[in-house]
């Protein structure tokens, strides 16, 4: 099994603060250095909506899940037979959208260093994504180059556009250029429109409950795909591969139908978009299972796959572990039927910049099947 979406996190923010240079370390401060636990400047963007039952699966022992490599191995990798896991961060995903772009950049660099040191070096099955500080696109490109040279980095991850323009806007070009040059896939993750500090939000206005936000959250991600497609990012970098994480799959058929209609009417606006929409999906777009509709939706996903089997070739397994809506291997097997092997393994096996087997050897990457 290849799991392309694991939400790993720290047990204590101090793990990350240790990677800041002394100037920023002093600026951020030390938790507990003032009475009542105070003394550290909050630096992670806040979310407008939280799940009333908790944003993560409940941990009986009080230790946050997925907060150490050994814990993750015991909780997820071993029981679900995961041979490669792509680590995508948890709340740290939103650090690039923090209001102070310079603090944000310093924190993102520290997070990337923490990730390489504490996680990628710790377990052969764990692979990383460069957290891209997209608020400063040139610095983001430099960060992708700095971290992207590590052999166990397989992707770049972006969760919040941060500048109030969707990700296809040319201002973000350096990010995609750097990813394309290093042959790193770009993971687009949901959730950036739920932050309190960014100039965007759910379409139509801010909902009043988490349940409503959770229902429309996929659209915040689909908007990014629309933007990347229509602004020609995939044409400018024809070998660039992207992967959407957190939108589920039910939006795909209507996206295709609508794209064909709008392309017929308005292609004059976007002359660089030359391939049929299905060719972009075949060659440059994958969708992770995270966000997969849960049992309340009945057999909708299975029926969808029956009607449009091609979707099975575009989906890769991403559990989102340990988030509240984690997708298990069993859920994927149930929903995808005969396409299950492709979704759980085959579709992801050439999508990310995994180390070449010849270079590292199967044993060195945890016994991944050839």
């Amino acid at each position, binding site marked *: 099994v290849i799991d392309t979406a694991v939400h790993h996190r720290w047990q204590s923010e101090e793990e990350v603060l240790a990677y800041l240079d002394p100037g920023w370390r002093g600026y951020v401060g030390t938790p507990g250095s003032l009475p009542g636990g105070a003394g550290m400047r909050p630096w992670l963007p806040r979310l407008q909506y939280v799940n009333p039952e908790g944003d993560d699966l409940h941990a009986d022992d009080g230790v946050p899940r997925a907060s150490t490599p050994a814990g993750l191995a015991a909780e997820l990798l071993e029981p679900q037979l995961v041979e490669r896991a792509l680590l995508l961060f948890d709340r740290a995903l939103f650090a690039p959208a923090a209001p102070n772009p310079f603090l944000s950049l310093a924190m993102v660099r520290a997070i990337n260093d923490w990730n390489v040191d504490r996680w990628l070096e710790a377990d052969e099955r764990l692979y990383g994504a460069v957290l891209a500080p997209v608020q400063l696109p040139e610095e983001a490109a430099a960060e992708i180059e700095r971290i992207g040279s590590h052999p166990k980095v397989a992707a770049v991850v972006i969760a919040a556009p941060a500048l109030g323009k969707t990700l296809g806007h040319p201002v973000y070009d350096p990010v995609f250029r750097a990813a394309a040059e290093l042959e790193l896939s770009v993971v687009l993750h949901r959730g950036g429109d739920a932050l309190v500090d960014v100039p965007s939000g759910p*379409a139509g206005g801010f909902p009043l409950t988490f349940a409503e936000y959770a229902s429309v959250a996929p659209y915040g991600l689909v908007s990014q795909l629309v933007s990347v497609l229509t602004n020609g990012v995939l044409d400018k970098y024809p070998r660039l591969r992207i992967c959407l994480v957190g939108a589920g799959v039910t939006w795909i058929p209507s996206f295709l139908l*609508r794209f064909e209609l*709008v392309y017929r009417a308005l292609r004059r606006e976007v002359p660089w978009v030359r391939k049929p929409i299905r060719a972009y999906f075949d060659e440059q777009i994958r969708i992770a299972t995270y966000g997969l509709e849960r049992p309340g939706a009945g057999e909708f996903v299975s029926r969808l796959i029956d009607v449009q089997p091609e979707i099975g070739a575009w989906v890769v397994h991403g559990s989102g572990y340990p988030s509240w809506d984690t997708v298990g291997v069993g859920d994927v097997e149930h929903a995808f039927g005969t396409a299950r092997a492709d979704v759980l393994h085959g579709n992801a096996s050439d999508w990310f910049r995994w180390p070449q087997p010849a270079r590292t050897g199967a044993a060195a990457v945890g016994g991944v099947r050839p």
Partner: protein
Amino acid sequence: MSATEAAPTAGLVDCDVHHLPRSGGEIVEYLPREWREFVQRTDGGTIPLKPPLKFFDHPDGVNWRLDAVPAEGGPPGSDYELLQEQLLDPYAVQTVHLNWGSSSGMPNGELAAALCRAENDWCAERWLAALDDDRLVAAVAVPMTRPDDGAAEIRRVGANSRFVSALLHYQPFGRPLGHPIYHEIYEAAAEQELPIFLHVNAGEHYAATGPLLAGGSAPNYRFEVFMTIHQPTATHLTSMIVHGVFERYPGLKVLVAEDGLAWLPGFAAVLDSNAALMRRESRWVRRRPSDYFREHVFLATQPCESATNSGASLVEHLSLFEGIERMLCFSSDYPHWDSDTVSFVRGVFPPAWHAGLFHDNARRVLRLP
């Protein structure tokens, strides 16, 4: 052309047609004196009577069917003779749901309310009464800045049986339409047995309202807008379900126009999947969310997402939502550039759906006699 295609569709209802004044002056005549003076400029013109659109114009700079421009001047949709010639007569339309309603999004909310009242009076007098054509029915333009104003206007205009829906074309509070601030509007609409009419969302394409799409404040191309056009409506309908609008007003229905169709099955599956989560935060979600769609929500067909004359893949996808054929209502969106014709729509959908989508469903949602 097959016999069925050539034959007129008896009892046809067109759920979305736009009628406009020849000039803003026609509406100004219906404003009370103090507002007439307010909008009048010293050079003889008026201040803008419509809110500014967000910036995503059609690349040709025109949003109309070019053959719908009246020879005698005025915008498309302002000429009743042409409407008859191009739509009502050739397709034997029995009922046409006229709407316009753009002034509700004026940044000056008091002016917006005055313009909505003027527009409703103009419509009642110049179109519904003067033309003596009982095929014409219309939407109430609902003022939104103060919901009590909106409710009062629904009651005032709704007394005229030729008004058959209540158009919410603006939401001033940055909150989706299930928010309790709007409930008195629904109460009035339910009392008058008028459905809520959402035309291209709740007017998010105007400058002064909520985000047009999720995840970014402004798209770069009309293409992006058209790809994401259903997103605000999805937020609004979710909000109405979660905050109990359909439980409080069990007879209330919603007709959604110009937001596409294909998004609905997948989105309803997402909502059903989140039903337990909704019940954790709201005591109003008593049925499966998709059942609220089946009972309360109707979709006008234009522009139906079929890039060819065969609707096979659209129909196959829509069929994943049980009962969808009872929710679809034909609309042409005349005189807009991407207007769908009756013969095109007849070809897209299977014959078994025709009676529902060409007339029966519209009769279940609009307050038709």
